[in-house]
């Protein structure tokens, strides 16, 4: 990549000096090696002609905020794209902080593309509202579509999926990740015609109905010999797994359904045999309702596993320890806190290739800890796993000392998300805030791109973050800080910040207004249950025409209260599409000052 860049840099210098002897096609060819969106954007800014060349040959379009730009603008700028990735709702929508009906509708995008881009091959959507109508339009308009990925989307039913199955003859990947699907019946699978054999990846793990057409599923799996990824949903019982695996021994990624059945030796040996025949398996998931005695059936494949998602498996530490000790090549582990500190210590000694760890709470709303999972587990993993880069960890206690140790152990963290379950929990040893601990994280982990804070935190932690977290792109803050200074440190110091989401912090108008220009260099800012007044929102909206300042307030119109009243939720994002018009009644976009729009 560096070689290409220095070459490009040289080329751009030549171009600027108008000594450029090569035709555009050469540049186009060179650009084809540049896949990342960021790099493509950089290339397009070198000069006007590079912008032109690049836009005609961009094949993959990424829109991080579907309201930052309009469908028409995208289709005008990139007339030849084949793949589109769109993201809709703010991240906090995952935790129900964004009321239903806020927006993020994909339909207008599909309509725009349907006419002009019949050759579209890939559609990837995240946190968008996708209706059956949209899916039907996709099915009708894009005969060449190969990849459809719906991640955290909602608004559609299995009827829409049936339309896709029936019409998309070239479909290779259908990936439903954590979607909310109205599961009307399992029969949509039968809509894949018998002649259809191109499936490479199918993920239906989020479908909740108990009905699955097993025969349709088995036939589909049987005839799609290129199938590499299959993630079943909970409805598929354990005794069907063996049948399916036998039809698809070439699978690389597999997600079970319910991993429970009456203990029967024949079922067990059937299952173990089926797993053994899968020589290519690298990733396993599913494992709902695990009956521990059936776990050893997967041991034959464990040595090759690089990814294991046990985050639904309510198995206890001893079984988990046994399991991970069979997986020396594990790179990615998702698990419940049943693993406990002891399990994480075992993980640290068995899995030296571990890169990503996520530990979820089994009893998130309980007041008392139900498992022995503390900061010690995280310290152990940070110490024992030299390649660990990404962590999501829920626990109930933490200390500055532990965080400093972790930071020093693992300066290569790129993602560090710590959730201490009780808000504003202090260092359990010293009763101090955890400022120093998180400060160490940002100081030592110079490549940190994503950080989520928790525990008792003052403005000081934000001072550290502003000072050290120069590569930080996304920051999540909750129940932290003392004053606007905190927010000011972050907005003024974190040069790479693109996404900032804040809830329940005493941040108000001053920092926001003082750093208004910074907001145009970020994708978005979310603030809920903070102290930003309606007056400040209006002012920001007026002064910054390239920002949409959305006030979300279910208590009623903000102008029915004094201007100094804080708004409930605030979502600010940069846009070149102007205010949107698909808002529900509880969302208001602050108006731009008309005189500024003319300048």
């Amino acid at each position: 990549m560096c070689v290409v860049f220095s070459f490009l840099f040289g080329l751009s210098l030549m171009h600027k000096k108008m000594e450029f002897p090569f035709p555009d096609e050469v540049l186009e060819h060179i650009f084809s090696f540049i896949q990342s969106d960021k790099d493509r954007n950089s290339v397009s800014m070198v000069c006007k002609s590079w912008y032109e060349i690049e836009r005609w040959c961009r094949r993959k379009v990424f829109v991080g905020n579907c309201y930052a730009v309009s469908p028409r603008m995208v289709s005008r700028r990139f007339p030849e794209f084949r793949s589109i990735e769109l993201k809709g709702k703010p991240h906090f929508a995952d935790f129900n902080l964004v009321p239903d009906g806020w927006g993020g509708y994909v339909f207008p995008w599909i309509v725009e593309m349907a006419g002009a881009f019949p050759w579209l091959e890939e559609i990837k959507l995240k946190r968008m509202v996708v209706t059956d109508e949209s899916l039907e339009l996709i099915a009708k308009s894009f005969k060449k579509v190969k990849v459809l990925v719906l991640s955290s989307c909602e608004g559609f039913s299995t009827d829409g999926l049936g339309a896709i199955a029936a019409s998309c003859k070239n479909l290779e990947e259908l990936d439903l990740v954590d979607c909310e699907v109205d599961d009307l019946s399992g029969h949509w699978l039968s809509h894949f015609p018998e002649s259809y054999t191109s499936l490479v990846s199918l993920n239906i793990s989020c479908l909740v109905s108990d009905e699955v057409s097993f025969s349709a599923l088995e036939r589909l799996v049987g005839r799609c010999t290129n199938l590499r990824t299959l993630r079943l949903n909970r409805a598929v019982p354990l005794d069907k797994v063996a049948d399916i695996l036998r039809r698809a021994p070439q699978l690389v990624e597999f997600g079970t359904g319910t991993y429970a059945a009456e203990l029967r030796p024949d079922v067990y040996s059937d299952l173990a045999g089926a797993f053994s025949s899968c020589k290519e398996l690298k990733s396993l998931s599913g494992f709902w309702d695990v009956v521990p005695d059936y776990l050893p059936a997967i041991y034959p494949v464990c040595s090759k596993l690089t990814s294991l998602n046990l985050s639904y498996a309510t198995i206890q530490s001893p079984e988990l320890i046994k399991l991970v000790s069979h997986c020396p090549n594990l790179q990615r582990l998702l698990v419940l806190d049943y693993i406990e500190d002891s399990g994480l210590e075992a993980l640290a000694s068995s899995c030296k290739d571990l890169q990503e760890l996520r530990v979820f709470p089994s009893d998130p709303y309980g007041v008392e800890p139900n498992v022995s999972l503390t900061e010690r587990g995280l310290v152990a993993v940070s110490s024992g796993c030299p390649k660990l880069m990404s962590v999501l960890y829920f626990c109930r206690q933490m200390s500055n000392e532990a965080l400093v140790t972790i930071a020093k152990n693992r300066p290569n963290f790129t993602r560090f998300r710590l959730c201490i379950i009780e808000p504003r929990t202090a260092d359990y040893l010293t009763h101090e805030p955890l400022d120093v601990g998180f400060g160490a994280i940002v100081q030592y982990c110079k490549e940190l791109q994503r950080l989520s804070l928790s525990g008792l935190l003052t403005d000081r932690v934000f001072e550290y973050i502003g000072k050290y977290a120069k590569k930080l792109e996304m920051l999540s803050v909750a129940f932290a800080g003392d004053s606007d200074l905190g927010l000011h440190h972050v907005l003024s110091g974190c040069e790479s910040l693109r996404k900032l989401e804040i809830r329940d912090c005493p941040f108000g108008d001053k920092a926001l207004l003082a750093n208004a220009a910074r907001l145009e260099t970020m994708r978005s800012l979310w603030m809920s249950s903070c102290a930003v007044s309606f007056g400040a929102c209006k002012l920001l909206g007026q002064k910054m025409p390239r920002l949409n300042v959305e006030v979300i307030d279910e208590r009623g119109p903000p102008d029915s209260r004094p201007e100094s009243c804080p708004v409930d939720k605030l979502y600010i994002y940069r846009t070149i599409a102007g205010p949107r018009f698909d808002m529900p009644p509880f969302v208001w976009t602050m108006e731009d000052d008309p005189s500024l729009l003319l300048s």
Partner: protein
Amino acid sequence: MEGALVLLGDGGGGSSGVSTNESAVLSKVEVVSEAESELELGLSLGGGATGKTKASNSSWEENGRILTAKDFPSSVVSQRTNNGGPSSVAVSGTKRSAESISHDSGSPTAVSQVVGWPPIRAYRVNSFVNQAKTQRGDEEVKPKYDLKKKHNFNGNEKGHLGFVKVNMDGIPIGRKVDLNSHSSYETLAQALEDMFLRSANSLEKEPLTMASKLLDGSSEFVLTYEDKEGDWMLVGDVPWRMFVSSVRRLRIMRTSEANGLAPRFNETSGRQRSKPI
């Protein structure tokens, strides 16, 4: 940060710095009359049929009320509170209830009352809460292999234990409400009132006329729900936990349409409802 605020950068349109005017904008307080008449319509499950009562802290007006089974003579008196003790209702439900009436141990429900915290996605909570409650503390993990038992999980069939969809007649956008965060019909009613009727007042378009009809008292709303068997019932007639275990979705229905419900309810009130597990 003391002193005048400065909007940094070029800003838009070259406006020169922030004068004290803008500070004044920020610091001025508009005095708004508290007595401003903003008729707020209430969901009422308790109280009498006449609207004058100020039910607890709900701000509902005489003219707007959502009727429930209580208003019908033959309704069964609903059991409002959880009885506490071990229940088959998801434990997270009791622990999350704002009321916490049912919380046996009396320990504070600190974490539980905050929306969206801890930051775990709903599907994750829903899926393992069902498993965890039976397996927590057990030496031996009890197998849950009987698929038929799945429907006994508390929550609607969709498996989204906490969240059910709510639609209100005349409002195109449905909402979702987390049943786990309520332990009684009252709090649910309050939440729905906040969600729908306040917004209705602020709408510019059609629903405003609907609201004004409500103000006339010429039409009212009823809260109904669709149960697991697909029947539409009036909310409030069964004990809360039974309701939670059988509700699939909610609908705030115009009384005119719901009239058919009441007699039907009467007919079916004698139906043997299966006891909650």
